């Protein structure tokens, strides 16, 4: 192989490797599935498992949240789909909601997922057209989860027991 070819190939390889490293530092993937999914999403070739997503949605509507999350995680192993992240967040919200108190641990997990959904959505705007949901935008869900995590005197209001889950 000629010197010029070696230099050109080396340059392309080094620049690609450096770009990949920068991408890893920005996205912080936690598994090989997230790495491959993230890379394919960056070129628009990533698709969720629709069957698993539909299963997850069915479980979610029946209030079987653990099952719903398992199916949704299977549908989007690379965590690259904003809609799936939104439903995951919503499942934590519905499971953690209570008349007397909210489950902070579940709300915090929900907040993580909704933030991820917002980050993945184009321009950060995500609206899910689902008549079963009372909060259809990621911004509403995020505000609700943050309000649930925030402790103030309104938490002592006895009228809270008449509140309803969205």
């Amino acid at each position, binding site marked *: 192989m000629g010197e010029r070819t070696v230099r050109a190939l*080396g*340059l392309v390889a*080094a620049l690609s490797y*450096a770009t990949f490293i920068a991408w*890893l530092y920005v996205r912080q993937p*936690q598994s090989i599935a997230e790495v491959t999914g993230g890379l394919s999403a960056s070129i628009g070739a990533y698709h969720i498992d629709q069957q698993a997503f539909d299963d997850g949605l069915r479980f979610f509507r029946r209030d079987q949240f653990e099952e719903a999350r398992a199916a949704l995680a299977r549908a989007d192993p690379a965590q690259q789909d904003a809609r799936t992240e939104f439903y995951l967040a919503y499942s934590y919200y519905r499971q953690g909601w209570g008349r007397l108190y909210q489950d902070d641990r579940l709300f915090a997990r929900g907040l993580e997922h909704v933030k991820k959904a917002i980050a993945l959505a184009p321009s950060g705007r995500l609206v899910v057209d689902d008549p079963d949901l009372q909060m259809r935008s990621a911004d509403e869900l995020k505000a609700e989860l943050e309000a649930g995590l925030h402790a103030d005197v309104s938490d002592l209001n006895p009228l809270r027991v008449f509140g309803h889950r969205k």
Partner: protein
Amino acid sequence: MSPTREAVSLPALLLTVAWLGGVRVTDRIGLVPPPLFALVLGLLLLGVLIKSGALAPDRLMHPSRSALANVNGLVVIAATFFASVQAFNLITPDAGLPHLLCNLFLFVLLLNTLAASPDRVRVLRSLLVIFGFAFVMKFIVLAALSDPAGGTLKRVLLVMLEGLTLGTLTQSPFHASTGYLAFFTIVIFMIALALLPSDGKFLMAKFVPRLERSRADDGDVIDRAEGR
């Protein structure tokens, strides 16, 4: 230097260091970007490497070279800088008094090395000692002190550090694999530094006087043999 080393091997090794230098394995795998001070230390190390002749920028970028070769050279210089930054990010404790002391120690040490202007071999030996010492401090001594489970080394260190508040020394505990990965990264970094194109001046300064002495000795031997 061969084009393969300049365009392929060196960028691959140095960029690998730039990648692995930020890896921290806890309950999850985190990639830690370098703190600002690591950039300062990285720049100082680049200065030390150039001044000592361990890195000769004119062998990487020069008007007599082709444009493509110069771009390859620029990639090597940039990769050396980023690898240095991440190597310092790796060996510096993350928080508390050890973080402050280690940064101060490295800063003064690099300034001192810059002022002393040692040759390439001495700089590489010195860097091996610096990185080896910092590795032992962070991944063996401080890791043992920060280990919630404790162990023989922790008990020994606690006896030695009797009276000292450990809150100022302890770090967030890592998974054991972080230490192995760090060791591997430092080894790659040292190999990459040794492979950098060096300035030939230090070789001339070291070997030419010896060669001249040797020639003079040979001349004496010939003169004696010929009875002059």
